[in-house]
């Protein structure tokens, strides 16, 4: 991590004057500031949005594998009649934790990884608005995720489904601590999302490079911005629900006690007011990613950029008015059902607008089917299938037939796997050279893609049939006796789905193999070119991987697709555009570096985000086991917050290590 005015880190090609020396130090608190630039400390205490993004991604990937293993166990259990691999109880825990892990610990943080890494780069900023808060988000998420999963070793995971309907999740029906771990764990990761949302919204609104108006922002940044807005207002709603559940379970409150007159729909409303925007929180980042990828590999600008922006924003608004379509079978009454049914059909419109825009971006383009492009096109196709089955649930009478069957499972896996996950993989392949400076293998990437596509269709496709045949969700086994005959035999399609899961698993494994082959110690993969895809947006106007200060000089923006317009000149006449290359990507980057800013300020690293994040699981264990731990956690949190507030924003000379013999830089730093 660069420290402010660290001598060797600053590009000084223009040789413009001397940097001001750091100011004299005053001692401020309990701990020395971490200033290491290598080793684990340089990661653990960093406030660099790029390192934080990479760590978000790595941890999310770990949870993806964990959630995938849980899914594999579920499918093994259901492969044949009367499965014996899992008990009913373990099966309940497995599907609950599978969904929770995939939604809260994989897709959301993976989207946060992309947002963290690329928003500042795409808007031409040197970091996010609040770098220490950014580090706090990361560590709160990591500790929250670990806390949630320790439940496996402390009496079993949560078992009420990821929606955790109360009163089914109250103590009499779920006596282990699983639900407590779930509630508190989501409370903690919710803090991470909320803090991250505030941080990124301020970053997008306030830290754009000169000339970058909102309508010149790269489309991924726009979609990520809408997601952060959704998080900002959705997280507090589930926070309320989780508090009520915690008070009910841990302190004997009455919120969900039906015998005391409680309304069982209270939880459902609170959960789905959060839960439906959550669906768009999951999928919009991927929409943003493929809206970057498709134009690059079609050699055309995104078709109807303003429509893609406003349909994204429209989804963000209408997404708040459709939550009760998750509750059609709960007896809401005909008026509510009709209203929410219509609203749900209406939200298909902006989504359809996006599909059309993507298709028309492809139309007439010079298409190159790289792996990233394949995943992007894969998203369009698979998500559309999921969207169509979604419309069949919007029709309430049809939905009441499908509720709680595997048909629903098929639908939401097509939209979440086919939408969110394929988009994330498109992003991996597209931005890998940007982040790590090396291209992933394209041939292996294509195997990765086709196996994932085959795997997902084999897994989730048959679930449509299984579901319409009436196999319920969340049942830990099915019997041969009622499996049916011929083409619609449940046994056959369940087996296909299970085989599909393993095809899918192999596909994802190939991705990990691809990373290993590219980055293993004696890898033959050469460094990636600076502009491998002939890209269009601002994050490419810097070296790959970017320096810790992102841009040698803050870019001046005059157009949407700024990088493209710096490389290409429009020689067409009138309405006809014809672009000829005037500069290569390398030359554009070189030009920026030749005109580097003489002084670059970067925020200094800090211990406090991690310390503060650590306090939260301590308090959460306290709620479950011992009140004293709550007090201890609160004490740590208070100390961390004061340490945080009293810490000067900039590193000072006395913060650096004492000079090390033979290391000129440390001597120089100690003497400034």
């Amino acid at each position, binding site marked *: 991590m660069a420290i*402010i005015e660290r001598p060797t880190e600053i590009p000084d090609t223009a040789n413009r004057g001397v940097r001001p020396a750091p100011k004299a130090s005053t001692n*401020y608190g309990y701990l020395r500031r971490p200033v290491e630039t290598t080793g684990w400390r340089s990661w653990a205490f960093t406030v660099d*949005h790029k390192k934080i993004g990479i760590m978000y991604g790595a941890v999310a990937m770990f949870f993806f594998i964990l959630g995938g293993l849980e899914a594999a166990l579920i499918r093994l259990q259901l492969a044949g009649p009367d499965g014996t691999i899992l008990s009913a109880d373990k099966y309940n825990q497995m599907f609950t934790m599978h969904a929770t892990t995939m939604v809260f610990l994989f897709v959301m943080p993976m989207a946060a990884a992309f947002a963290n890494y690329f928003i*500042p780069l795409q808007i031409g*900023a*040197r*970091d*996010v*608005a*609040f*770098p*220490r808060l950014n580090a706090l988000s990361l560590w709160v998420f990591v500790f929250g995720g670990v806390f949630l999963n320790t439940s496996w070793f402390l009496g079993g995971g949560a078992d009420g489904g990821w929606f955790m309907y109360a009163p089914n999740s109250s103590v009499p029906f779920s006596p282990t601590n699983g639900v407590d771990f779930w509630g508190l764990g989501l409370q903690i990761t919710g803090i991470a999302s*909320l803090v991250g*949302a*505030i*941080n990124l*919204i*301020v970053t997008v*609104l*306030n*830290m*754009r490079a000169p000339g*970058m108006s909102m309508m010149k922002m790269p489309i991924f940044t726009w979609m990520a911005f809408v997601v952060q807005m959704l998080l*900002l*207002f959705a*997280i*507090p*709603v589930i*926070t*309320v*629900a989780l*508090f*009520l559940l915690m*008070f009910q379970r841990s*302190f*004997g*409150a*009455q*919120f969900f*006690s039906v015998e*005391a*007159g*409680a*309304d069982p729909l*209270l939880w459902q409303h*609170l959960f789905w007011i959060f839960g439906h925007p959550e669906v768009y929180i999951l999928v919009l980042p991927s929409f943003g990613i493929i809206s970057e990828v498709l134009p690059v590999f079609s050699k055309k600008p995104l078709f109807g950029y303003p429509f893609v922006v406003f349909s994204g924003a429209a989804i963000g608004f209408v997404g708040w008015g459709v939550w009760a379509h998750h509750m059609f079978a709960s007896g809401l009454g005909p008026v509510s059902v009709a209203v929410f049914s219509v609203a749900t059909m209406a939200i298909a419109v902006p989504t359809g607008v996006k599909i059309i825009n993507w298709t028309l971006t492809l139309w007439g383009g010079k298409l190159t089917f790289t792996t990233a492009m394949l995943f992007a096109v894969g998203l369009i196709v698979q998500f559309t299938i999921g969207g169509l089955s979604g419309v069949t649930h919007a029709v309430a009478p049809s939905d009441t037939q499908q509720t709680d069957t595997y048909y629903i499972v098929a639908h939401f896996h097509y939209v979440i796997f086919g939408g969110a996950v394929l988009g994330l993989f498109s992003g991996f392949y597209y931005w890998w050279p940007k982040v790590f400076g090396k291209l992933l293998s394209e041939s292996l990437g294509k195997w990765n893609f086709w196996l994932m596509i085959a795997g997902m269709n084999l897994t989730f496709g048959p679930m449509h049939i299984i579901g319409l045949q009436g196999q319920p969700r969340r049942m830990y086994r099915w019997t041969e006796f009622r499996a049916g005959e011929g083409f619609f035999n449940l046994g056959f399609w369940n087996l296909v789905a299970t085989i599909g899961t393993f095809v899918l698993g192999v596909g994802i494994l190939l991705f990990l193999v691809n990373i290993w082959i590219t980055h293993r110690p004696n890898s033959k993969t050469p460094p990636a070119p600076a502009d491998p895809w002939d890209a269009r947006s601002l994050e490419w106007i810097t070296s790959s991987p970017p320096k810790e200060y992102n841009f040698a000089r*803050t870019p001046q923006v005059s157009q949407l697709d700024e990088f493209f317009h710096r490389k290409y000149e429009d020689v067409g006449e009138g309405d006809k555009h014809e672009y000829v290359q005037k500069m290569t990507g390398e030359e554009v980057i070189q030009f920026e570096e030749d005109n580097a*800013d003489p*002084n*670059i*300020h*970067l*925020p200094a690293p800090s211990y406090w985000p991690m310390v503060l994040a650590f306090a939260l699981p301590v308090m959460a264990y306290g709620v479950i086991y011992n009140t004293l731990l709550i007090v201890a956690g609160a004490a740590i949190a208070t100390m961390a917050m*004061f340490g945080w*507030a*009293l*810490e*000067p*924003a*900039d590193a000072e000379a006395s913060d650096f290590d004492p000079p090390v013999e033979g290391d000129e830089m440390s001597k120089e730093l100690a003497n400034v």
Partner: protein
Amino acid sequence: MSESLISDTVKDAVEIVKDHHHDVHDHDVHGGDDHSGDHGGHHTSLGLSNTKLAMWLFLGSECLLFGGLISTYMLYRNRHSENLGPDQLWDIPFTSATSFVLLTSSLTMVLAVSAAKRKDLRNTKIYLGVTALLGGLFLAGQIYEFTVFYREGLGFTTSLFSSSFFTLTGFHGVHVSIGIIMLVAMIGMLSKEKVSGDEAEAVEMVGLYWHFVDIVWIIIFTLVYLIPA
């Protein structure tokens, strides 16, 4: 005559708006978050400082937190045993008095912010102190009120009404407590000159939070206490 009066008023208003704009601009652009990545110009795209924007966003999020809690209370406020409902328990004059105390604290908070903008450190600290004191008085009133209700038999677990009442007002009380901690910490940091960045803006941030907590109380007081169940 009346026409000229109107045009004068409009002119004045325009001047005031211009002035205000100037103030806002002058103050905010240079008061950016000192920990921000782009230290170079202190310039922000909106002209509103990062910290202030972040505080507004946080308060926006808080609206939904209280929205959820208030909805829960409104759903359950009539679900209680015969003699332990709002109509039997509330002591409106008493709660009105503590509400008045809390609202007065918003006034002293405004005075603190205004003193901080004038760089009048002494008065800033005095008004912050008075604000904290009034907040403390309100909390004491709430604790007293809770104790009375408890003695009359209304525990946290007694009924749906009691659980949701204590949760809603308890959450508000916790917010007031955190506000008081912020006020006291602010006084300490101002005394020791430990505020990094713009002091006036730091005071203003505490002020924004404090006013928000007050506004929430106005809503809670109206919905929970004043409107008969």
